């Protein structure tokens, strides 16, 4: 064995010596540092525990409080002040489903279309495209109650003048979550490598053919994630609906254009939560559980979808 080779006895000895020295040095940390490290790590762990515990406590408290109200009445019966033990969420559930159907009808074409324009067509050096981009980022952070004001002044009254109907609520919610869909869809489109586009164009496909047959299919998991998260936000949103006419004592099944009023899950929960009687408090908690089950399932699916398809290229 040559003296210079990595596994020669001399080299092995030298490596072992160096390792021992380094370890001895590291073990020799001042006591203060060791304590400080431990305290800091402990504090961090405590913070994480508090944050997670608070959110889990929310779920368990609603379960404990709402258990007495669970039963077929909860989804089959309309709200009632006279018989709180028989009251339920039927019109609210139907209203929420219709609201969401409307939101989807609006955000799917418009959200994906806007993202396609910004990613595939827009010339980034033009000022108007920068304006659109910054504007969407801002819209995503505008408080939801402002969208309620917009809905009241622009959709219910004012230029569109739809009146207090379910479609007006649906449109308001759709405008509220539209920026989320656009931002998520853009990220999904950006993740599709350019070689796919160039390959398709080189084979003679037009730009739209390239988008429709290559880019969009590749971006679908990311777009779906964005759309699901947006819908789940729309399901739980309460404040804007209070302004655009979601009333709380709808005892019949609402219709999209009916002028007699409509209701939605979170608005009904809010109303029950405001009443001090035990039965209504239990109803509110049960409604929260109902909504959380749906929303957390949707969000988990969306995040799983995103993480599953994150690094395909």
């Amino acid at each position, binding site marked *: 064995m040559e003296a210079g080779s990595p596994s020669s006895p001399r080299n092995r000895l030298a490596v072992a010596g160096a390792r021992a020295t380094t370890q001895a040095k590291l073990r020799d940390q001042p006591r203060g540092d060791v304590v400080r490290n431990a305290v800091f790590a402990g504090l961090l762990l405590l913070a994480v525990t508090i944050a997670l515990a608070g959110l889990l406590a929310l779920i368990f408290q609603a379960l404990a409080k709402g258990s007495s109200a669970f039963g077929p009445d909860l989804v089959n019966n309309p709200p009632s002040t006279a018989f709180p033990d028989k009251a339920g969420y039927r019109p609210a559930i139907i209203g929420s489903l219709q609201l969401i159907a409307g939101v989807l009808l609006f955000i799917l074409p418009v959200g994906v279309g806007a993202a396609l*324009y910004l990613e595939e067509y827009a010339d980034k050096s033009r000022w108007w495209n920068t304006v659109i981009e910054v504007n969407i980022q801002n819209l995503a952070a505008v408080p939801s109650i402002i969208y*309620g004001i917009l809905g009241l002044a622009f959709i219910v009254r004012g230029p569109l003048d739809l009146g207090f109907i379910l479609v007006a609520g649906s449109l308001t919610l759709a405008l509220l979550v539209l920026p989320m869909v656009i931002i998520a869809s853009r990220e999904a489109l950006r993740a599709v490598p350019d070689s796919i586009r160039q390959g398709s164009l080189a084979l003679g496909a037009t730009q739209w053919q390239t988008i429709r047959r290559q880019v969009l299919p590749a971006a679908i998991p990311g777009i779906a994630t964005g759309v699901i998260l947006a819908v789940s936000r729309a399901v739980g949103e309460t404040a804007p609906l209070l302004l655009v006419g979601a009333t709380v004592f709808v005892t019949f099944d609402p219709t999209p254009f009916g002028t007699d009023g409509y209701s939605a899950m979170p608005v009904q929960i809010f109303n029950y939560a405001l009443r001090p009687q035990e039965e209504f408090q239990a109803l509110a908690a049960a409604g929260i559980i109902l909504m959380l089950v749906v929303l957390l399932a949707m969000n988990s699916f969306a995040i799983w979808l995103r993480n599953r398809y994150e690094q395909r290229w």
Partner: protein
Amino acid sequence: MGPETTIATEPAGGPPRRLQAQSKRYGERLIKWLLAFCALLSVLTTTAIILSLIGPTVGFFEIVPGTEFFFTFDWTPQFEPPSFGVLGVVAGTVNVVIWSMLVAIPLGLATAVYLSEYASPRVRKTIKPILEVLTGIPTVAIGFFAVSFILPEIIVPLWPGGFLGGADGKPFMALAASLGIALMVVPIIASLSDDAMRAVPRGLHDGAYALGATRVKVATRVIFPAALSGIVASVVLAISRAVGETMIVLLAAGNTPNPTLNPVESVQVMTSYIATTATGDIATGSIDYKSVFAVGAVLFVMTLIMNVVSIRLVRRYREVY
């Protein structure tokens, strides 16, 4: 589309071919314009928001002097004569936001440092998605939790009393809403700050360790300052969310205009005034109706400034690394 764009040399056996498409592709152009219109809708939304706020707000200031609105603390629209000092409800918002941030910023940042510097990849892969899923809890659920659990079970037994006054027997208070809002924004701060800290180049991190720095020092003196603009952006965004939050405050903070920073008092904030006043039966054109838009305009401008700051900061840290 002139003849000069034809290929001069004939390909084997075929007629000369033009490089341009054979038709003008009106369909393709139509699609482009349709998609551009979709993108334009977002600008129209902003314009509509601003227009719908401006009209009634201008009408409001024709009746109520600006000095009264911006510089006095009496918010009593239902009294006769009414008084419109917006600082009365702005103070409520500040009260709720300050106390919520005192709780949420340390918790959120500690969670972020833990996730990016301490947690093993496996722990991180579990906790981060949980936090993200929990971001989707509707605020009406958090508000209910704040008023029916946090207030009676946590604040009342633990509140020390003292010069701020006792907490017993109060059905609503700003602090309950603050803690509810903290619960809402901790995942936002944690998730965004974690992203910012992980965007710090690995070299800075490894270099600090190679120089013998301890874990605490790497986390607090190297990674944290390097990610500062992203962290500040996440905090600013959280504040903007807290300012615009409606349901938690509506359920937990009561609804009495009360210009105080005392956390155990019941307060009315900007959003809860809007939500309780602008319900279906409000008469268009009345002073109450206009006051909703004036308060909405103040809220919009406040959150807009914070959002612009936050977006700028995020841009900056993206450009550096």
